[in-house]
């Protein structure tokens, strides 16, 4: 089995079977990162461009390691090092980079739809590493992979996703991913950051965090951004933290054996209490570890096969 598209733009367009293929493939890659020589020759001679218009440490380095461990050559470009600062458009930047004949372009960009936009004129494989508020597919995949390691099955698994849903691409990708895998998903957050229209994603909406947590098997927290406060999405850090911060007492309301996840970077003491972040139930560092395996799997599945369009 293979992925249908030559690009990975989002989870919404993936079939459940494709998600399972990626998770299963990641299983094989996880072991490589535990070796003394953390490298296989699979993508030798392939060139991958890591184009990050937004600051990102973990996603960029995770993709970079994934590519390197598969022996691909990686070029890193940031907004600062590209000609964007000289007024070059995204299209011209991409066309310039494509002239260097890369095989794949991994893009993180502040505009929703930017990864899709690239595919309208790009020859390379395009991998979305986060586009605006839209999707961050590899994050959702690594989250699903981490859940699968712990919980085995998604069927009827109660997952609570809490925080700034409105502005979160991680939330959108996770909503699609978890629904496709059959989980029972509840979204939680203040109504300003979780508009009722999100109910149309076929998920439960609950504004009371304590109620949402009852019986939860997985608690996924989202980073709260302080600039939202200036726009009056919530009145104060203190109040947000009191209503939607994950504390040990709150974790106790969840099901036995519940696990805690966070895409990072975390605001300690704000959306998540330090003792919860560091607890045995917390999978936060495991998510980071799994991220490399998931991205290796995605790179292998997209670049590893025969690419008819690039041949001849």
């Amino acid at each position, binding site marked *: *089995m*293979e992925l249908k598209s030559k690009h990975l733009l989002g989870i919404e367009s993936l079939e459940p079977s494709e998600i399972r293929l990626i998770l299963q*493939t990641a*299983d*094989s*890659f996880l*072991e*490589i990162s535990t*070796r*003394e*020589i953390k*490298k*296989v*020759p*699979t*993508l030798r001679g392939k060139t991958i461009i890591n184009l990050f218009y937004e600051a990102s440490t973990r996603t960029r380095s995770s993709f970079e390691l994934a590519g390197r461990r*598969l022996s691909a050559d990686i070029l890193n470009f940031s907004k600062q090092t590209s000609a964007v600062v000289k007024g070059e458009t995204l299209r011209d930047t991409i066309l310039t980079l494509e002239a260097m004949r890369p095989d794949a372009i991994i893009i993180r960009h502040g505009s929703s739809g930017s990864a899709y936009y690239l595919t309208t004129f790009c020859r390379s494989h395009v991998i979305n590493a986060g586009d605006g508020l839209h999707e961050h597919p590899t994050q959702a995949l690594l989250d699903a992979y981490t859940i699968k390691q712990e919980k085995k099955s998604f069927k009827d698994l109660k997952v609570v996703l809490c925080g700034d849903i409105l502005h979160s691409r991680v939330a959108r990708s996770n909503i699609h991913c978890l629904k496709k895998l059959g989980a029972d998903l509840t979204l939680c957050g203040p109504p300003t950051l979780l508009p009722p229209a999100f109910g149309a994603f076929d998920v439960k909406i609950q504004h009371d965090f304590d109620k949402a947590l009852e019986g939860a098997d997985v608690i996924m927290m989202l980073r709260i951004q302080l600039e939202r406060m200036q726009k009056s999405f919530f009145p104060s850090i203190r109040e947000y933290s009191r209503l939607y911060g994950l504390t040990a007492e709150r974790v106790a309301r969840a099901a036995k054996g519940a696990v805690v996840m966070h895409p990072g970077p975390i605001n300690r003491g704000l959306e998540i209490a330090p003792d919860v972040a560091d607890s045995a139930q917390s999978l936060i560092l495991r998510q980071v570890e799994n991220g490399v395996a998931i991205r290796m*799997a995605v790179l*292998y*599945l997209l*670049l*590893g*096969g*025969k*690419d008819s369009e690039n041949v001849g």
Partner: protein
Amino acid sequence: MDDKIKAKVMDNNKIRRSLHRMTTEIIERNRNLKNLAIVGIRTRGIYIGKRIAQLIKEFERVEVPVGVMDITLYRDDIGEIESQPEVQKTEIEFSINKKDVLLVDDVLFTGRTIRAAMDSLFDLGRPQTIQLLVLIDRGHRELPLRADYVGKFLPTSRRETVQVRLKEIDDTDEVLITEPADLKK
């Protein structure tokens, strides 16, 4: 694909006898059996490797560890194969450093799988020696490789396929030569 069976070249007994013979040869050549480690190449190399380990245990009462190797990531034809090979796990739960590693596969053909397997081994550690055991050597080598232990030399034409079937996954022990049906007349 409808493959036509041209000949059955080994049955249960023949396979058993040749595994016995090869085990004896292994024991003769490896005076320090305790330093031996078997790595079976997916899929059928695993089961042949496990049977060899079992025979060594019966003959010499030495437990030889068996690991599983998936060579997909080391293939030299990635990017050329029409349907993408599924990556599976490599599971070698012992250190291969300074070990005498016995690579095991069902059929030796072009030699490319063994090349990939050796590359993979060197990424996993530094073995003392590497030996190769195959149940069938069907010729047509494309690389300068030969097996140390061969169950049966089997001259074939290139369009033929050699199918090794093992009880563990195929419910029967046999080796068949098949040919694509549509190519025959």
